[in-house]
Each structure stands twice: as C-alpha cells, then as structure tokens.
C-alpha cells in the first residue's frame, strides 16, 4: 500500500503588519528588521507632558534643529534589531575571548616591555572613562531622539560603549595581575593628568548639549573619529613594532567594531544631509565646530602615545574630512 502525503499551501491573507505594509508595499514580505523598526515609536495622543522637560512632548521632532520629512529614513545598514544585534555581538565576543585566552596562555604579556605596560596603564586605561561618557551620551540620544530607526541604533551603540569600557578595564587588570589599584590610578590620570584634561572637558561639555543631533555629531561622528583611530590604529601600529602586539590582539574587538559602526554613522550623516539644504548647512557648522574641539582635545594625548603626533592628528583629520565630504558635507 502506498501512502500519498498531500500538502496544502494556505496563502496567508497578509504578509506583515498593516503599518509595515504601508511602507514596503502590499503583498511583500517584510524582514524582521523592518517589522521590529518601522513606526514602533508612538507619535500621537501623548496625554501629559513629561515632568523632566514640559516644553516638549514625550517624543518631539522639535528637540533637534535637523528637519526630516520621515524619520524612518535612518534605516540601519546593519539591520540591527534585538536578535541580529545579539547574534553579531556574541560572535565577536567569542573571537575576543579567544584572543584574551591566547595572550594569557602564551604569556605574551611577559615579553611586553615594562615601559609599554606603563604607557598603556597611564594613557590607554583612562579611556574607560571616555567610553563610559560615550555610553551616557548614546543613552541620552536614545531617550531624546525621534523615530525607532535611529533611537534603536543609539541604544545598541550605547551598550557597545559599555562593552568597550569593559574590554579596556580587562586589559588594565591583565597587565597588573588583577591589581584593582591600576583602575584608581587610571581615574586619577583622567581627573588630574594634564594630557587628559582636554578630552575630559570635551566629554563633560558634550553632556549638556541640548540638541540631540548635535550631540550625535559631537560624540559619534567627530570625537570618536579622532580618539579611536589614534588609539586603536596609529598607536597600535607603533606598539606592534615595539613588542606590544598583545595589546593589538586584545583590542581587536574595538577595531572591528569601529569599522562596522562607521557604516551606520556615515548613513546618518548622508541621510540628514541629502534631506534638505538647511540640514546640510547645520551639519557643516557642527562638524567644523567639533572637529576643532576634538583636534585640540586629542592632540595632547597624541603627544604621549605617538612618535609624530602632529602628523598623526593631521592624517586622522584629513581622513575624517574626506569621509564626511563623501557623505554629502563640504568641509
């Protein structure tokens, strides 16, 4: 006797939610990212104004001078929603973990010269305070921003910054055989060492920027574009040659994370710029302002961690300007 298994194909009446369908077109299948992003944030019927700042609604487009017809144009090229974000980071975390295990197992820190360890403890470890500040700023962006497309990405970015701070802390503890006193010393450097004060001031000033898009430009677009290439690219190239290759391995996460986030950051600039001339003007002014602030804030640090600080800083600045111009600015 033969058994014939029949299958019936039941066509779903609709492929996705109505509000997603209205954006992507009828009868089309939506990706998880689209379903988890489009129009998630409420836009109407806010009953009470928030006590924290009653001059605005809970979600208010007036909180920034940037004008957008549709705030969901800021779609993340990485398509991060909870599941895809967590999967991607878990993979990177595994690689980073392997690198730390390798460094420990092969005793790579034993061969690292003492003056390099000292340099890292005094002039890299305090970056954990910078990363924590960046975490605060991105949480602020998530809370003040408009439209789930961009605020979701800010939230993920904020979590990443906490991760960076933790990796930097871990490096400090590895270098000191788990002596927590290096963390106190690092904080003392951040608070009192002359070279750190420019960056600390820039960071603390950024905490009180009102316009959220301006804050995004200051923190994610400009300041990071000076700090990260200096520390995790130019400085490490020199460390590599001087027996500090363990450091390069331990910061691999931050390096690859930077490349990945650049795609998202470039998109935010490009989308805001191409919307209208006023946005473009605004972004131009902000970028000019913060490039100058960031340059002067980071230069004293470059003098501590790089052999030719001026050239390094100019190179970083030129690369950033080229990158921003490619995304629609004219600096």
């Amino acid at each position, binding site marked *: 006797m033969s058994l014939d298994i029949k299958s019936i194909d039941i066509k779903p009446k609709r492929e996705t939610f109505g509000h997603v369908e209205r954006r992507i077109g009828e009868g089309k299948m939506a990706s998880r990212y689209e379903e988890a992003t489009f129009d998630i944030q409420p836009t109407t019927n806010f009953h009470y104004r928030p006590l924290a700042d009653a001059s605005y609604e809970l979600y208010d487009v007036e909180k920034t001078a940037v004008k957008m017809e549709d705030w969901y144009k800021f779609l993340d090229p990485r*398509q991060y929603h909870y599941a895809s974000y967590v999967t991607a980071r878990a993979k990177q975390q595994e690689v980073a973990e392997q690198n730390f295990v390798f460094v420990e197992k092969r005793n790579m820190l034993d061969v690292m010269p003492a003056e390099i360890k000292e340099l890292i403890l005094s002039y890299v470890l305090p970056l954990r305070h910078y990363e924590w500040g960046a975490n605060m700023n991105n949480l602020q962006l998530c809370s003040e921003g408009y439209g789930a497309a961009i605020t979701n990405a800010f939230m993920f970015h904020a979590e990443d910054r906490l991760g960076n701070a933790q990796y930097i802390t871990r490096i400090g503890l590895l270098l000191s055989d788990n002596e927590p006193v290096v963390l106190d010393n690092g904080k003392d450097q951040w608070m009192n060492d002359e070279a750190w004060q420019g960056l600390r001031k820039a960071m603390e000033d950024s905490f009180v920027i009102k316009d959220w898009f301006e804050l995004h430009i200051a923190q994610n677009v400009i300041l990071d574009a000076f700090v990260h290439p200096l520390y995790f690219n130019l400085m490490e190239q020199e460390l590599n040659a001087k027996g500090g290759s363990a450091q390069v391995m331990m910061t691999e996460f931050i390096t690859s994370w930077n490349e990945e986030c650049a795609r998202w950051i470039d998109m935010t600039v490009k989308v805001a710029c191409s919307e209208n001339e006023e946005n473009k003007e605004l972004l131009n002014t902000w970028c000019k302002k913060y490039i100058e602030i960031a340059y002067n804030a980071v230069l004293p640090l470059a003098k501590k961690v790089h052999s030719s600080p001026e050239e390094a800083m100019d190179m970083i600045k030129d690369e950033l300007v080229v990158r921003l111009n490619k995304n629609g600015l004219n600096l």
Partner: protein
Amino acid sequence: MSKVFLALQAVEETRAIIEAIKEDNPHAEVENQPAMVKVAAEGKLQIMAETVSNHIGRDWDPQELQLVLVSLAGNVDEDYDHFTIYWDN
C-alpha cells in the same frame, strides 16, 4: 534548454537570498511552497554574495547557502563571491 532550480527553506535568511536572486536574475521564477521557496530559471541562476550582503545587512558567505539549501538542480560553480548553477551542455 531545461531549467536549473534551487529549493530553500522558508526562513529569515532565505528572504534576503531570494531578494538578491530576483535582483540579479530578472528571469528567475519564484514559487512559494509549504515551508520552502523554489526558484527556477532558464539556463543559469546566479547568487552574488555582495547583493545578498546588502539585503541581509552583514557580510554573507556563499557557503552559508548550505544551511538553508534543500535541493538543487544544475552544475555548481561556487566561489567566495558567488554561487552559480547552470547546465553545462
């Protein structure tokens, strides 16, 4: 000439692959079946890693196709940047 075809599991990754196939192969016919999607095309069907990466939002390796592949018909030409099936006759 007879058709080449790919049958893929109907899962989230497949959606991006199908979108990419439709973009790069306008002659491909997509057929939704229970729990799988069948794509058939006259002569040749090409999946470009770059197009899939754009749709999926991350780097996509043609080897990942194996994870959702149910069945295929055609000669296979696979490289780091593409996965192509065609009839070699």
